[in-house]
């Protein structure tokens, strides 16, 4: 009897879930479809929801019309540089806020949280001028350094570090472990799900970043892949199938990283939730 009563609700939930999946997947499907179409198929009315034959040439065109490898290399350097920089800066900062008491700690932490509320566009100009005066425009440094300190990352890691039992730290200190050893042998392993989540968010944010690389670069030397794709749009704006092929190549690394890290991300939120 209970099963029968629940059945309509279950069916409704399944239907809503399927509907949501369709809504979220449709833009992806449309992007993939367009990337494999001919121009004629793209322009066809009514629109076609399939392709007659896969146009791999679109990917070749997208790859050759801009210096795809150059932009990809720059994106990789800047993304990995930001990731490494964040670990070096954020982990010790979060540890200090989580496990030490010092004068002005609350005020400093409040300041860190306040930085999360400042729109990036407001700091763009002073930082731009600072890099220009120091001759660092159009360098990797100018696209990495401003982003390695993150209020969100410090906050999330601090919350995770605070959950590690005091007894573990005391035991380590009794064994004469130094603070950095404690960080790397106790804190970081305990925070792997959080670190994975932060790494993924940083990866996606940096890989997709458009505004800052756009306004801070005036030569092609350090321009990133999203700018390259925008350039493809400028060159091939009337060939949307080529631009979509470029967009597909832009998001593939993000999808790979997401698939690899998804278990850790679920763990991170579950872990934080049960506490």
């Amino acid at each position, binding site marked *: 009897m209970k099963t029968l009563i629940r059945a309509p609700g279950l069916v409704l939930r399944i239907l809503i879930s399927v509907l949501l999946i369709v809504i979220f997947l449709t833009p992806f499907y449309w992007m993939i479809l367009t990337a494999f179409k001919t*121009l*004629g198929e*793209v*322009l066809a*009315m009514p629109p076609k929801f399939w392709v007659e034959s896969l146009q791999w040439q679109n990917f070749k065109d997208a790859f050759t019309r801009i210096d795809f490898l150059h932009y990809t290399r720059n994106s990789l350097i800047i993304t990995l540089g930001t990731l490494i920089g964040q670990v070096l800066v954020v982990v010790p900062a979060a540890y200090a806020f989580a496990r030490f008491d010092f004068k002005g700690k609350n005020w400093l932490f409040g300041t860190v949280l306040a930085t999360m509320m400042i729109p990036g*566009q*407001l700091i*763009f*100009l002073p930082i*731009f*001028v600072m890099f*220009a*005066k120091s001759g660092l*425009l159009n360098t990797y440094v100018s696209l990495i350094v401003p982003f390695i300190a993150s209020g969100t990352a410090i906050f999330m890691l601090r919350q995770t570090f605070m959950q590690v039992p005091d007894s573990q730290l005391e035991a380590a200190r009794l064994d004469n472990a130094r603070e950095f050893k404690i960080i790397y042998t106790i804190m970081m392993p305990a925070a792997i799900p959080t670190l994975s989540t932060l790494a993924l968010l940083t990866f996606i944010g940096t890989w997709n970043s*458009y*505004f800052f690389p*756009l*306004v801070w670069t*005036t*030569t*092609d030397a350090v321009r990133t892949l999203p700018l390259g794709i*925008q*350039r493809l749009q*400028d*060159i091939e*704006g*009337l060939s*949307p199938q080529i631009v979509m092929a470029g967009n597909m190549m832009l998001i593939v690394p993000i999808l790979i990283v997401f698939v690899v890290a998804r278990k850790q991300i679920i763990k991170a939120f579950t872990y934080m939730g049960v506490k």
Partner: protein
Amino acid sequence: MSMWKKKVLPLMMTVPVTMGLAGCAQTDAEVSAAPYEKGDQTIELQFWTSAVEEVNQALVDQFNETKGAELNIHVNAEYQGDYWEMQQKVNAAAIAGTLPNVFVDEVAMTKGFADNDIIVNLEPYIKATDFDRSDFQIGDLGNLYVNEDLYAFPHMRSVPVMYVNKTLAAKTGLNANGPATFAELEAYLQAAHDATGEPPMYLFNYDFWVMEALLHSYSGTTVVNKEETESNINSEGAVKLITFIEELESKGLVKVLGVTDSDAFYAAIAKPSTALIFSSIGGYKTFAGMAQKNGLELGVSMIPTGEDGTRGVPVGGSNTYLANTGSDQEKAAAFEFMKWLSDTEQAAYASANTGYLPTRLSSLDTDLMKETIAAFPGYQVASDQLEFSKMRPMTGAYHEIEDLMGGRINEIWLENLNIQESLDKLAEEVNVILNR
């Protein structure tokens, strides 16, 4: 892109203010400028380009191999994105002291750049080098001058035109040149619609440039008053035009596209059922090529006339600007490059390879332009339309106003808002920006 614009908008407002505080308008044509003298060392110049990147790069390569090699000047071209991205970069670079020597940007930005001391008054250089400017042929030259002094050279200049699907016209027995007047437009579109059952015209007022042409031609009005202190967007003529398009839209004869629908707009150009499109002559060769791939012949006609034969088209596109940076010798060298870039052969090359207008009368006499016009008669139509050319608004905040008006007017059409009421409100918003 629209997101990017929204993010950048605050900067558009703050940067000019900062610039205004930092310097005052350079209006002094008395400042002397020495002509360029070739030295032993090669002068390196930075040239920021925008739009048609490949043609700009090809021109720079030609300069470096010929005139540049002769004068010991080497130009490095760097593409910076579209006109609005360039504007942001130029404003930021002016504050940071990293301006390039020469740059390309949209024509309506001339006064804003001059008022903020970003660009140099060219009069002293013209005087020093006996440069002949009388050959410039781009219709109304207004967007080159500030307070009667020349501040820019025309570069890739264009006018909006009416593209006509000649193949569809032939099939349906319609005039292959499209409607000559707005009075004929509805009947023309209705006939095309009856034949295909689809919208026969697409309208995309994203950069408001086409709307300026419609305001001039349909109702003989302008976006702002002559002094650029007050909006005309709620004037009787503007209301009549918006109402006219609203009626066509509600009958399914015009499909209005939103800011994010640029791909759909350009795709519509090559659709067999599209009868008419209003767009830039700068896209002529590309559009014609796209249509041809779909088995269509695309013709070019003038924007239709309004009552009593009113007609007017804004001359848009880009100028080259000499930035206020570098030594006197670098500025003189940059002026040499600008002169070369605007010269007869180069103007012909730029025009023939894009669709933009030849910016010198003399370039029409080159073999290249004669061949191009013979193969693509639309060039001649655009050139002839210059007889009705109008200056674009010059206010430094015009791009912000364009964005606002484009969005609000699209809302009127797409959401069937009350026209007079909405335009009155819009005019108030525009006035606030104009008098900020």
